[in-house]
């Protein structure tokens, strides 16, 4: 785990050193060309759809980055403490379901309190979904990697059932909930854009978590537990079981909140596939950020931008979005490997130079 952490500190520098954009565009261009699509027009469309205009940023990139940001935080937080919560996806969708339930059943009497209660319900549902694997881990040492993945499937099918049963819209035609009333929607930051306050909340949470990990006694404990649970327990006098339990639930809350923000701020309804795998992409987002909460912000925006650009490419040039996903996966592979390859090459170089020096004498 610590090796992952160290590796990713350099990934972060590499990623945000600028060169990444060039690499990224190069790989993408190559892939598009291979697919037989016009490279220039495709890339143009990708850029235009993601960062090409204030509107692209505010109505597409940032909007798509919001759930990635919150789930990315959920993953980063749990990984830092040595809890491998792969279940952000499931926690997100049950969060979305809980928020939907509040939005369409209780909006009448909650009035202006609808959105806060909706988000609280989403976070609570995320916690509820995390409790099962967290308890199994604490009580029976069942590996959470397996249980959280299983909980993801359960969550997906649960939502499938809900949108065809208890939460289906009144006409009973479409497998989705009815649309949220105005009061149940998270306001946008400006009437002209789709960006909602949920994004701002996510950024504030990222900053808070970044600060808390560095500057609070709890953060001190979490990181100690993540890198050396034994020393943390025995010398650090930390109740490791209790702390990882709490972090696990906190991680679930963040992921659940992501679901609430997605339905309350973007889709305004619950339906099948409400998440296009946000909870899984979140793992890449978190790793790319070196598991540092503050770095999750740019990392989530990068992935949000790619996804927004991909949609534009599909719309304008008919390049399948799958191409971008393919490239995203390539980029993740390259970025994760890059720092190690660079280190290896530097080592080799040093050795060669030393040998040459000797030869010259």
């Amino acid at each position, binding site marked *: 785990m*610590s090796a992952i*952490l160290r590796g990713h500190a350099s990934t972060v520098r590499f990623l945000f050193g600028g060169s990444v954009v060039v690499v990224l565009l190069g790989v993408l261009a190559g892939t598009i060309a291979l697919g037989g699509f016009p490279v220039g027009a495709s890339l143009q469309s990708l850029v235009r759809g993601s960062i090409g205009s204030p509107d692209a940023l505010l109505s597409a990139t940032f909007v798509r980055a919001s759930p990635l940001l919150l789930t990315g935080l959920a993953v980063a937080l749990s990984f830092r403490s040595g809890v491998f919560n792969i279940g952000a996806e499931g926690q997100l969708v049950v969060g979305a379901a809980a928020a939907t339930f509040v939005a369409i059943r209780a909006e009448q009497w909650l009035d202006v309190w609808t959105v806060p209660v909706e988000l609280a319900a989403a976070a609570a549902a995320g916690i509820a979904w995390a409790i099962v694997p967290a308890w199994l881990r604490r009580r029976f040492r069942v590996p959470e990697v397996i249980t959280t993945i299983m909980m993801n499937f359960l969550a997906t099918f649960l939502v499938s059932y809900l949108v065809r049963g208890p939460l289906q819209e009144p006409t009973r035609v479409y497998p989705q909930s009815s649309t949220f009333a105005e009061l149940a929607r998270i306001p946008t930051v400006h009437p002209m854009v789709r960006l909602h306050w949920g994004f701002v909340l996510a950024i504030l949470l990222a900053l808070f978590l970044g600060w808390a990990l560095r*500057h*609070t*006694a*709890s*953060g*001190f*404990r979490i*990181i*100690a537990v993540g*890198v*050396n649970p*034994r*020393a*943390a*327990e*025995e*010398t*650090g*006098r*930390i*109740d490791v079981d209790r702390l990882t339990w709490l972090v696990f639930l906190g991680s679930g809350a963040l992921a659940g909140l992501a679901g609430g923000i997605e339905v309350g701020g973007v889709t305004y309804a619950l339906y099948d596939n409400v998440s296009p795998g946000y909870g899984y992409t979140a793992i890449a987002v978190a790793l790319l950020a070196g598991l540092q909460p503050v770095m999750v912000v740019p990392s989530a925006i990068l992935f949000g931008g790619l996804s927004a650009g991909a949609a534009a490419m599909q719309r304008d040039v008919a390049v399948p979005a799958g191409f971008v996903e393919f490239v995203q996966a390539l980029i993740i592979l390259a970025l994760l490997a890059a720092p190690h390859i660079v280190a290896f090459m530097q080592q080799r170089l*040093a*050795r060669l130079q*030393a*040998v040459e*020096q*000797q030869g010259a004498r």
Partner: protein
Amino acid sequence: MTDSALEAIHIVKRFGSVEANRDANLSVGAGEIHAVVGENGAGKSTLMRVLAGLFVPDAGTVRVHGRNVTGWDTRRAIAAGVGMVHQHFMLVPTLTVAENLVLGQEPTRGVRLDLAAASESVNSLCARTGLRVDPSRRVDALSVGEAQRVEILKVLYRGARILILDEPTAVLSPPEVRELWTVLRTLKARGDTVVVITHKLDEVAEISDAVTVMRAGETVGCLRTQDATPAAIARMMVGRDVVLAGDLVRHGDHAPGAAVPDVARRVALEVTDLVVARPRQRPAVDGVSLVVREGEIVGIAGVEGNGQTELIEALAGLRPTEAGSVRLNGREIVAFDVRARADVGISHIPEDRQRRGLVLEYSIADNLILGLQHRFAHRGVMQRDRVRRNADRQIEAFDIRPPRPDVPARALSGGNQQKIVVAREMGRDFSVLLAAQPTRGVDVGAIEFIHARLRAARDGGRAILLVSADLVEVLALADRVAVMYEGRIVVTLPRAQASAEVLGPYMTGAQRGAKLS
């Protein structure tokens, strides 16, 4: 020394801004046993790794039998017959001795691993070198001494004729050390060359033909062992006169805590009939009773593996106990977990500092407050300035090097890591200190210092239970000495009546006695 097997000339090796080797020179004659001594962080291990091809030096030359091999890698070093035995073992615990030895160059029949041939070649190697290990045993069932023998065999199996051993005795009990010396002498008789890193000056005198002293990244001298005295070597190492623990014992000016066992003094720790079970074996701790009073150091001597580790861990709350009682200042704490015991005043210097005592990724400053984080926080927010001041004070007081609070503990030498642990455990409020191997792997200067701190704590009214594989250390510190053998305390003597001669038979089980006090 015209016939040098291994030479290092003006070696410089930097890690970032730290110069681990500044001007290191070493010349090892063929067929000799050469000791390299120096304080923690003097650059011994770095120099050895340069020789073994693990590090590439930034400047300087390495020669083997006169041939310039600077900048080589481990593969070519091994091919040239230079092999290193590391301080931390690199064996696969679930494989057998034979499997570990042939790992990487397994004999095969067709595509199948030929274990019989592996076992055979290991046996013949054992016979040739006189190193005895059963090739069919699993490594995780071996004692530390045996595991080390496997490490040495592994290097020999790959054809090494020049062996570099990095602090081989740090993990060994006295009988195991004697066996190691026999092995090294056998190798020497075979014509092999041996380089041994050590902290212990008596070992230098015992085993080596020549000794090179390192200080602060430089080699400050090379002597024939017969021309050197321990005091002279210690002075070269530290750059000043040092009181050696052994001297205290030899000269008898041991200073026990005020009036030796004072029965009227308050009992701080009282252990009664403590049993610590082991799966499918006799109990590791088999009905131990002992008393540690305020202002006294009770030292537990004994060959390692006789239950000392389990006893200390059980007292610290790290290991469940089967039966018995543990009272701290009269209060029963046997049901307390590790945190609760720490809260009521038990401090613990663990044997395995890297796994249990430190978070290596954390800075020196953060490690110094590990377990005390709540005291350095106000409403949950860490007070970084106080953490920093605490670090500055402790680094100064314990001479932790490098004296930079932000450096991660991982970057420190073993001895300096140990100083962090000692500084922290002695810096907190405690009534009983459990000190397990408090100076293992620490240089003479730091040993002297840690001993002084332990005595000062004792004189300040603290109770200390000391476990050490080093009898000299027990005799230098303890007011009363107990010997553990096969999970039992076989004898307890006041310091005045204890000596290596008296304790020896008890330690080896040759004699069993009643409690005298």
